[in-house]
């Protein structure tokens, strides 16, 4: 028996990797192509579209970063957090404080370090991460909805600090955010003047590219993470904590780490939010913002990086688009007119969309995309469904004869 078993095991050494390789190309061709096309379109867009879309775009890129971060925590690991707005506030306030100048504008006596904006951005990410690290012992010990309730407290603490620590946050009225610049190149309207194929590249165009780069890096990092060792540990932890720990995953440490990573994503998102609005105010970082981020990842698809990005586009762009096209969209009126306010209309819309998603496609927009892909592939290659059924067929019929054959070859 032992000799007989030793031979097939020897032969699988050669056989196995080939089998693995044959199945792998399934996803490695079409998706990168779509990604490249999308990137080219996004890169060329500032040349063709007007400022409104570019400004909306930068806000959307910021939301994408935040949504990807929250999705790592909620979608991938199954840990509910309502504190995302708090960590965004950490990032935004730190950026404004570190890169802003001291001065007494209006009533408040503001202090600021006046350091380069890049330093401010990095500090924003780090401070949000530090806040996440301080909270992570709690995050490591609580599960799911309980963490959600505990994290709620952070939002209220954040509101209090934002309102009362006037010298840093600007208090109730908030404070303006310094323009971003990178090694002397400002992301403002001039200094230096810039033209690309005859189109003036001003603040909106420049920020668009900044947002695109940051969102793309955030996307890549999260995707790589999910496809490798830590990502697998997090996903198993969501499905069964006991199984994960018995397989060697230090559950508490991973819960703490993912909370840290998620808060750093939120910090970057907060910096981008401050840049996008041009100022920060306490009311922007309330519970509602946390809920909006949850709406993004539920709509986009829990656990999917691309889904989170899609959900962020939908949720953050819709109110702005409604506002812009208030006269065209039915039932929506502009300020002071009849009908719904754009923000309200957008909220009704999200509510409806969330109900539809939960009822019909719990995997969200990512699930829709997946369905579409499968449909597109079926008539041609007929890959996933038929190949898996063929695989089960072969396992039931050919297995008894499989072993002797393998043994005899070696």
């Amino acid at each position, binding site marked *: *028996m*032992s*000799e007989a*078993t*030793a031979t*097939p*095991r020897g032969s*699988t*050494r050669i*056989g*196995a*990797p080939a*089998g*693995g390789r044959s*199945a*792998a190309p*399934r996803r490695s061709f079409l998706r990168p192509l779509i990604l490249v096309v999308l990137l080219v379109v996004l890169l060329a867009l500032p040349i063709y579209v007007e400022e409104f879309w570019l400004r909306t775009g930068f806000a959307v890129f910021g939301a994408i970063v935040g949504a990807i971060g929250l999705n790592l925590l909620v979608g991938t690991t199954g840990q509910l957090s309502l504190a995302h707005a708090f960590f965004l506030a950490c990032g935004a306030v730190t950026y404004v404080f570190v890169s802003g100048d001291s001065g007494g504008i209006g009533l408040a006596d503001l202090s600021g370090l006046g350091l380069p904006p890049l330093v401010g951005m990095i500090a924003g990410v780090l401070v949000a991460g530090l806040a996440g690290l301080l909270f992570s012992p709690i995050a490591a010990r609580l599960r799911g909805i309980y963490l959600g309730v505990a994290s709620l407290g952070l939002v209220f603490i954040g509101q209090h600090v934002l309102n009362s620590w006037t010298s840093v946050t600007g208090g109730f009225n908030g404070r303006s955010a310094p323009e971003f610049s990178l090694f002397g190149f400002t992301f403002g309207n001039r200094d230096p003047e810039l033209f690309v194929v005859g189109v003036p590249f001003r603040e909106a165009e420049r920020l668009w590219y900044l947002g695109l780069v940051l969102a793309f890096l955030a996307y890549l*990092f*999260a995707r*790589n*993470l999910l496809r*490798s*060792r*830590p*990502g*697998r*540990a997090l*996903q*198993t932890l*969501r*499905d*069964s904590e*006991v*199984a*994960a*720990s*018995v*397989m*060697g*995953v*230090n*559950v508490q440490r991973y819960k703490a*780490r993912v909370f840290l*990573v998620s808060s750093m994503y939120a910090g970057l998102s907060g910096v981008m939010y401050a840049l996008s609005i041009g100022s920060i105010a306490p009311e922007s970082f309330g519970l509602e913002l946390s809920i909006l981020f949850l709406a993004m990842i539920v709509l986009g698809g829990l*656990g999917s990086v691309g889904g989170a990005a899609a959900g962020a586009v939908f949720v953050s762009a819709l109110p702005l688009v409604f506002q812009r096209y208030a006269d065209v969209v039915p039932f929506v009126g502009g300020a002071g007119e009849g009908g719904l306010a754009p923000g309200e209309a957008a909220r009704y819309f999200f509510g409806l969309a969330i109900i539809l998603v939960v009822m019909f496609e719990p995997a969200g927009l990512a699930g829709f995309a997946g369905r579409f892909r499968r449909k597109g592939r079926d008539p041609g290659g007929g890959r996933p469904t038929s190949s*898996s059924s063929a*695989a*089960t067929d*072969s*396992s039931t019929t050919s*297995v008894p004869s*499989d072993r002797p054959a393998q043994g005899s070859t070696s």
Partner: protein
Amino acid sequence: MDGMSASAAGAEIRSDIPSVDVENVSVRFGAIKALSEVSFTVEPGTIHAIIGPNGAGKSTMFNVLSGVYKAAEGQVRFGDSRLDQMRPYQIAGIGVARAFQNIALSGGQTVAENLMLGRHHLTKAGFIAAGLRLPRATREGKIHGERVAEIAEFLELGDKLHTPVGVLSYGDQKRVEVARALCTEPRLLLLDEPVAGMNAEETDRMAEAILEIRSALGISVVLVEHDMGMVMSLADRVTVLDFGRRIADGTPAEVQVHPEVIRAYLGSGDEINPAEAAEAAATGHHSSETPGTHS
């Protein structure tokens, strides 16, 4: 990796595999004593079965061995390590692997991804290395991916590596459970009812696989099982639990004729011819639907 080199040597006992010594272990849930003063020893390289009627404490024993439950009293030693004082992930780190009875796989992930989790304690890539796709993380993933494919092949899962676990048949999922445990390169393998709910053919294949694992890798296997036929043909030694107590411990032949065991499985040994009862216990007709007092 080192597991493979041992396979060439066949069924020889590996020197790096210590015995498991369970000494007077008790577990309480409030007022209920799930285990009271249970002792047994798993000799290196043997297949050791733990059997008993429903509620006898078999799964509790497994949870103690893998660190999920803490023993209120007693010790569990695995070589120099005290399993009763370690956390589950630390126990996994010293080469104790467990396959779950009720499948605890991630259904949305592929077979390969589920198996790669078994390599967790053998690999190092952290959040930063993985997120930035540093060369060492990629290299590590590739090397361990090859070994995972090898183990999948061994359990006849080679053609399903890239299939989501959720769409596999029940028998296949059970095999993925065992494969995932094997992927940790264990020195001690805990199998919690590996053939529960399987049909006869699948059961035979699993039994064959377990024998192959033992003979090829030379590791110890602890088995909780209801299928008496399988236990009697596979196990080198059997520990019988009833109401959280050990009522018998010995070779399958010894345990089969033990009066306490017969009583536990058939309700009462007095009016029944012991030979008949022993045979009934051996064939497993009464094992899954234990009659009488315990169900």
